[in-house]
């Protein structure tokens, strides 16, 4: 028999090894799933993980990597801070949607004005919108003790309906021949978020994601607030005795992750999506949770995990086209990845030892 012995400190080697193991296990389990469904497992895995980067159509799909990774990394950076402190914002999807709406509102109000100020104002409005949406669960938890998990999640459904209302009502394009959806911001130069360097896919959201990774690294390893957050996550009672107010951390973490998610929403609406529709939320807010965990809540890890999950999105689309694989495959893959990661995590906290005979 074997038994588990808790480690005094989490193993640094396993911290790095488990995400890699989880990816490998996901590929194997995914291959089995494809085989059961009647697809060639090797071809499917290659289409999802290899072809988007090095396949025949890579010239088109490679820039998409940054387009998809930017929102994931930006949102996950914010979420990771809260997860470190045991504050569970799982409503980033809602904050993303609201940020997209408030940011686009600035552009639609300014239309057809021209000016350098419009795009920065939109980014600010997007961040503020996401921040405000994130502050709702924060304040409800601080004032009344309501679970931020449930409130933030409920607000995703509310936000989806706000988006639908906007697309069919107040923000509907007056020149859209009655079709739902706002004006297309890609056709409004002062408000659009174009590709900055042709062929790379890099738009302002990519710049913001890179800045967010740096900011989070600085916050968590060089700033006293980051120290408080880590302390509160590891030893809540000790942190309270040291004068860390849990209320402040709740407001800070939910506000920060909300603002990041809101910005991500705005960059998407002004860039790749182009307009407010009822399909504004595409699940980035939920996938970002997986990115945060897979990246070990560490800035560098989040960067890599964001790129990997972006790859699964693009590879999934490619597999849909070439192998007629259903769209939901990617979702299953992402879910499996999180399962395997959480399972293998055992190895970072426990040592496996032979049970000594009595």
């Amino acid at each position, binding site marked *: 028999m074997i038994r*588990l012995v*808790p480690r005094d400190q989490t193993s640094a080697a396993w911290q790095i090894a488990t995400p890699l193991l989880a990816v490998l296990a996901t590929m194997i389990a995914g291959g089995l799933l494809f085989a059961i469904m009647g697809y060639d497992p090797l071809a499917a895995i290659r289409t999802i993980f290899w072809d988007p980067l090095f396949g025949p159509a890579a010239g088109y799909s490679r820039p998409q990597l940054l387009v998809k990774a930017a929102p994931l990394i930006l949102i996950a950076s914010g979420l990771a801070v809260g997860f470190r402190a045991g504050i*569970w914002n*799982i409503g980033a999807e809602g904050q993303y949607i609201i940020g997209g709406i408030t940011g686009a509102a600035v552009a639609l109000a300014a239309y057809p004005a021209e000016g350098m100020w419009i795009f920065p104002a939109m980014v600010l409005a997007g961040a503020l919108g996401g921040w405000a949406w994130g502050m709702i669960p924060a304040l*409800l938890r601080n*004032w*009344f*003790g*309501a*679970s931020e*998990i*449930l*409130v933030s*999640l*409920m*607000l*995703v*459904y*509310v936000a989806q*309906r*706000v988006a*639908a*209302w906007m697309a*069919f*009502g107040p923000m509907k394009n007056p020149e859209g021949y009655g079709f739902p959806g706002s004006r297309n911001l890609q056709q409004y130069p002062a408000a659009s978020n174009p590709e900055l360097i042709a062929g790379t896919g890099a738009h302002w959201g990519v710049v913001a994601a890179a800045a967010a990774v740096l900011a989070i690294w600085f916050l968590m390893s060089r700033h006293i607030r980051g120290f408080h957050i880590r302390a509160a996550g590891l030893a809540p009672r000790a942190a309270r005795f040291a004068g860390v107010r849990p209320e402040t951390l709740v407001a800070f973490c939910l506000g920060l992750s909300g603002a990041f998610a809101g910005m991500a929403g705005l960059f998407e609406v002004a860039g790749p999506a182009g307009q407010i529709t009822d399909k504004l939320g595409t699940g980035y807010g*939920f996938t970002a*949770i*997986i990115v945060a*965990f897979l990246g070990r809540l560490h800035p560098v890890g989040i960067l890599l995990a964001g790129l990997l999950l972006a790859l699964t999105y693009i590879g999934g689309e490619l597999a849909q086209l070439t192998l007629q694989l*259903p*769209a*939901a*495959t*990617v*979702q*299953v*893959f*992402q*879910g*499996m990845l*999180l*399962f395997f990661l*959480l*399972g293998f*995590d*055992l190895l970072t*906290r*426990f040592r496996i030892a032979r049970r000594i005979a009595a």
Partner: protein
Amino acid sequence: MIDPLSVFLLLLAAATPILFAALGELVVERAGVLNLGVEGMMITGALAGFAAAYVTGSPFAGFLAAALAGAAIAMLFAALTQILLANQVASGLALTLFGLGLAALFGKPLEGIKAPAMMPGPLRINWIVWLGLVMVPLVWWFLNRSRTGLILRGVGENHDAAHALGYPVHAIRIAAIGFGGAMAGVGGAFISIATVLQWTEGMTAGAGWIALAIVVFSNWTAPGVLAGAWLFGGVTVLQLRLQAAGIRVPVQLLSMAPYLATIIVLVLISARQKYSRRAGRAAPGSLGQNFHALR
């Protein structure tokens, strides 16, 4: 004219999925486990139940399959949290994301098919609605009057003490998680087999999360769960009635009502648990914490 009886019947139907899922989660949480995967288990049950009902032609076989499928997928969560000692919040989220994806993947061929008709039960009320109402006193009796229920509550209240007394903490929790999965599966299947009558992707639309909120609202009691489910059912029916009556409020705003009502109720009840000296928080003492015996 709105007929109060027909409104009550609609309310009962609207409350049933949430009632099943929340009763299951109640038992899970009383055993000290927080399973945030209710939504994933419900959608799994909705799909498995619909598929089985369509293949066999029998809605009851569908509900049985839904219970089995819900329990089966819950075992993934049980393995992660009870054997591999993974964080419960993260594992529950993983279960929800995985369940939604899996159901979407395997549900594609079933889109657009109609569910087989179901024979109504006594008083022309669906059998499963009756079953849900019967489950409330059963769960109450199990938790408060049976010996096994007492042990289960002991495990949830203080797993170290329960372990010291010789009770198998992990086995009891795994059994509770399985029960919760089966109940969530039946609740999900009620939506696909008895309410919507077909399969659509993401059709549970947050019902699992509302069930989680209702467990908090219930103060971890079975009658409280019934009250919460009916309250939710009432809001849903009212909202649909207002839509049908053509009130001058956009449909999208009206359909927010169940989610907003859940938040409001959650806030009110949390505030009472936080500030009232008498009420006190009834959450199980070991809720959400993993247990690992050193010897």
